[in-house]
């Protein structure tokens, strides 16, 4: 689905007009292509202490980026990384934040700002907690000020997690790269040093077998493509009635098609049987299959309520149960489930859908600990407004408004969701457990 408005405000006379009228000016986002350099320009790493040094070392030595430790005026930075893990009181924020401020004025288009900080807990000294929690508000506000397709995201480290933990490194790379084009204003918590860094950042899923439900079209199709691009062998699952598209997807990603209604009692067993017989293992399950039956609650019927809960959450729980009891889902397994901003902020007419998606968030939080012993994780991805066949059916004016209600002032693409799924499914993300990562361009609604 093309965004005509976005095209207009980025070319010729209409671009000038939009600027003079002060209209929203969404910038075309750069997306990931294999072989693309991580960053096209220098990176500024701010902050004092060993953590900042370690991060600067990672970027300059391991990733071979041009790293500056002090802002050079007028220089166009591709990224600014602010390391705030060692702040102990709110006034500690002043120096690094104000140093970043200078660099933001000349941040490159599609630039990246990433903060690293620590989780504020009730056990912290009040000043420490204040400084740490301050980063949350700082990052979310900063992200709202960025323009030109730039994004701001934060990594929050739980106690005892070092900046060199695989998931911190993985998240940093994800946020710096174009893979996170539509992820904005988000803070992702890393709770442990679990996970392993990939041999190749281009094919982090090499040798892994991934099951994607709802893979025939839209976001699911893009997830199948993206996981396969990252090296995974994909089992593409969808309703028998969607078989024709599913065939196209499975043949394109050189995986296998499994026509299956996820609400079937034995869906989990059939998924396991297929993956193990054909591919010898099962490592990743992406619960993407989902439906909507919108209706105001006052007019809600069992026909509209029950199927939504059955497909969007009950089926996932049943499949997870089969995975967990099989003993075959035990080598750093990954469950990634599709939630929705509706499940976080609520949406008029979507009580059923929001209940199911809120359910997903609760489910991954409670499922993750069950997988931890095997180095496994369960996480959710919450898409905001994504350009799909589903959102194309929204009335034109409503759609135009919905697109602009985020910091990037545009809808995301299915691939943006898929990239985030791929990150959470990767071996490096082993320390991200039971979380929800939003792919919404920092939508105004909810957290």
């Amino acid at each position, binding site marked *: 689905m093309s965004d005509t408005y976005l095209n207009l405000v980025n070319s010729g006379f209409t671009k000038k007009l939009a600027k003079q009228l002060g209209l929203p000016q969404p910038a075309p986002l750069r997306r990931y292509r294999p072989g693309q350099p991580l960053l096209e320009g220098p990176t500024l790493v701010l902050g004092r202490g060993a953590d900042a040094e370690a991060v600067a070392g990672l970027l300059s030595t391991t990733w071979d980026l041009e790293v500056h430790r002090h802002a050079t005026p007028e220089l166009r930075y591709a990224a600014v990384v602010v390391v705030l893990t060692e702040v102990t009181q709110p006034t500690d924020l002043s120096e690094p934040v104000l140093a970043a401020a200078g660099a933001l004025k000349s941040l490159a288009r599609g630039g990246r700002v990433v903060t690293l900080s620590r989780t504020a807990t009730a056990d912290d000294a009040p000043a420490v907690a204040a400084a740490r929690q301050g980063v949350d508000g700082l990052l979310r506000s900063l992200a709202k000020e960025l323009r030109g397709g730039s994004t701001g995201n934060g990594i929050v480290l739980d106690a005892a997690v070092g900046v060199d933990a695989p998931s911190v490194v993985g998240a940093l790379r994800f946020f710096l790269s174009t893979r996170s084009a539509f992820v904005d204003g988000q803070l992702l918590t890393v709770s442990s040093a679990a996970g392993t860094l990939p041999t190749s950042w281009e094919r982090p899923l090499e040798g892994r077998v991934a099951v994607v439900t709802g893979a025939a079209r839209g976001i699911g199709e893009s997830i199948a493509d993206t996981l396969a691009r990252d090296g995974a062998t994909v089992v593409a699952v969808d309703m028998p009635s969607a078989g024709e598209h599913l*065939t*196209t997807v499975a*043949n394109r990603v050189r995986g296998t098609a499994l026509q299956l209604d996820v609400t079937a009692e034995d869906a989990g067993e059939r998924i396991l049987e297929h993956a193990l017989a054909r591919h010898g293992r099962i490592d990743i399950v992406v619960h993407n299959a989902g439906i909507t039956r919108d209706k105001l609650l006052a007019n809600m019927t069992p026909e509209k309520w029950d199927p939504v809960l059955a497909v969007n959450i009950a089926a996932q729980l049943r499949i997870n149960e089969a995975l967990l009891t099989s003993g075959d889902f035990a080598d750093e397994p990954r469950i990634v489930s599709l939630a929705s901003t509706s499940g976080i902020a609520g949406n008029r007419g979507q009580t059923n859908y929001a209940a199911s998606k809120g359910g997903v968030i609760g489910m991954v939080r409670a499922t993750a600990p069950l997988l931890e012993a095997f180095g496994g994780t369960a996480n959710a991805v919450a898409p905001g407004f994504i350009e799909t066949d589903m959102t194309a059916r929204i009335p034109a004016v409503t759609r135009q408004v919905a697109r602009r209600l985020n910091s990037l002032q545009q809808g995301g693409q299915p691939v943006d969701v898929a990239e985030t799924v791929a990150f959470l499914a990767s071996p490096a993300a082993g320390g991200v457990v039971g979380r929800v990562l939003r792919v919404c361009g920092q939508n105004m609604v909810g957290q």
Partner: protein
Amino acid sequence: MAASKTTTPAAAPRALVLGGNRIPFARAGGKYAHASNQDMLTAALDGLVARYGLQGERIGEVAAGAVLKHSRDFNLTRETVLGSALSAETPAYDLQQACATGLETVVSLSNKIRLGQIESAVAGGVDTTSDAPIAVSDRLRRALLDLSRARSVGQKIAAASKIRPKDLAPATPRTSEPRTGLSMGEHQALTTAQWGITREAQDEIAFASHQNLAAAWAAGFFDDLVTPYRGQSQDGNLRADTSLEKLAGLRPTFGLGLDTPATMTAGNSTPLTDGASTVLLGNDAWATAHGLTPLAVVVDAEAAAVDFVHGVDGLLMAGAFAVPRLLARNGLTLADFDYVEIHEAFASTVLTTLAAWESETFGRERLGLDGAFGTVDRARLNVHGSSLAAGHPFAATGGRIVATISKELHRRRTAEGRPVRALVSICAAGGLGLTAILEAA
């Protein structure tokens, strides 16, 4: 010791059915009205490739065919392979044996596997009556060929002047028998009368076919056998809500000119249908290497033909002769089969075949046995429905039957842990019949 060049006979490999895929069958003029044979066969083959992860794979050989074929489709199967997700280095050939085409591709490829010539194969068939070839009249064709060979203006005028307005009428495709001029339905009407098959018995066969097929669809049995195509996600001819009353209300369409009452209707005869099917075959080693579960073994096959032009046997009765020979060779009787699949070209084809086997006279005089050949337990007959409900895209029927019953054989064997067998019989134009034995692997 010096290596000798003589070949050591190894145990013959088994030919296994590993799976199948077809597109839902559609009534002629329906959703596939504008799909060609190649389009449909490619869809069925690509669905098979997707289900079994065969992208880029060099299969031993692919054989398929169509009964109604455009002259441009002279290399239909190879062209289909080239347009599919299989390796372009997969060899292929076309095969045609009227409605037995699909089963014959299974039989001949299985034989190659048993001989060790190939390790894997895809058998298939396709037919469209919606996109059937329309030929020009023989007179017009000759004139146009003469015209293309003509050099001078004079020769050209002479060739063109031979064309008469009536030559311009297209020669529509016919399925009638070239030697008798009778359609298949009229032939079967003669056989139906010969054996005294009632209207009620035929309607019961048709009713059971729809009931059984509908139940299989409802149970999800076809989830891994069929891939939707062009918006058709179930067999278009299936009438889950039909009843014996509805069937009894239909007007007879064949045998109207006979002395006996006409009993064959649109309800107990197969409609013109579009569709395609494929079957994946391989030996044990290939199946293991690809993580595929063998469903059934292709044990043996027998073809027969009847002299319907001069003899007493009906056009579609060859199966009645092939099966006794096939079973005798394998030391089996009808009672040894858990499933019997008799292609429902017409309900009465099934009934006349069963009647012949139950007849003392037919057994003694025509089969040379001591008495009747035997009885088929109706509970074992066409248990997932057959052509009356699913429709009958001629060359695609064999693949439909083989894939469906192979899955059922495997299911039954897994459940009961004992050998399970199926008998398949398909009648065809020209007085042909092809039969085969499948056993759960």
